[in-house]
């Protein structure tokens, strides 16, 4: 198999690999390939970082702006419970 064909065949496994859910055999194969293929190594690192950055942006608690919350409670006829 040529190098590029090998890269493509491993692409399908990348999500499972970065999530740590790839089966052991494929994991070993992928790691061996990455250590010899600079492009794939960059793709794995930057893919991991991409997911990490999005996780970081949602690490803060999700809050609803006060006015949005107020209108939501009104639309649900729950005005009486706004103080909670």
């Amino acid at each position, binding site marked *: 198999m040529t190098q590029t064909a090998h890269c493509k065949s491993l692409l399908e496994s990348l999500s499972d690999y970065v999530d740590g859910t790839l089966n052991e055999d494929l994991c070993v194969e992928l790691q061996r390939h990455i250590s010899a293929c600079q492009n794939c190594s960059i793709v794995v690192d930057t893919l991991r970082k991409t997911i990490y950055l999005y996780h970081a*942006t*949602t690490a803060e608690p999700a809050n609803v702006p006060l006015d949005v919350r107020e209108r939501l409670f009104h639309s649900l006829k729950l005005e009486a419970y706004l103080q909670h």
Partner: protein
Amino acid sequence: MINKTTPEFSLEALKSGEPNEFARFVDTFSGPIYRMALKMLGDGQDAEDVLQNTFLNAFKHIHSFEERSSLSTWLYRIAANEALMLIRKRHPETTLTDTNLEDAEGEDYSPLQFVDWCCLPEDELLSVEARRHLDRAIQRLPEKLRIVFILRDLEGLSIEETGQALDLSQTAVKTRLLRARLNLREQLSSYYGELTHDRRDKK
């Protein structure tokens, strides 16, 4: 992300329409649902519409909730439907998505950019401008990939829960998730790649 310490709710009280319990339910889940809608639609007013419709529908249909999924997954399911419906209503011209998606799935999505931007410092990777770029990149995903990425990677649902929320098999969730992640990686590589070059030039 709806965290692990999410309070328990009395399903009985919710089903009998007890307003106090429902208000508590709304306050627990409205944050994540609003954020999901905001990321999905990129517009505050649209996100608010989805938020209200989600809880109105939850109110209306809670009596038929059968606990086949968790309460939060059930709510994400309603919200995802509301968001996708709103997108279709707002942009009828882009609703050939079923065919578009099949095309997209058959497409070659091999990586094209091989710049290593991982070493950029955290304050540049997460600057105000970079965060704006991260949001814009999500908006550019086809919506059926976008919703999978948002539920799985932003809201932290499992593959199984994402499948339950979207009526998709776990294989379909994984396929779409991989395409979404690779697409975002390409977009971020263009943006951060340039920053990396700028830094090198300065040295």
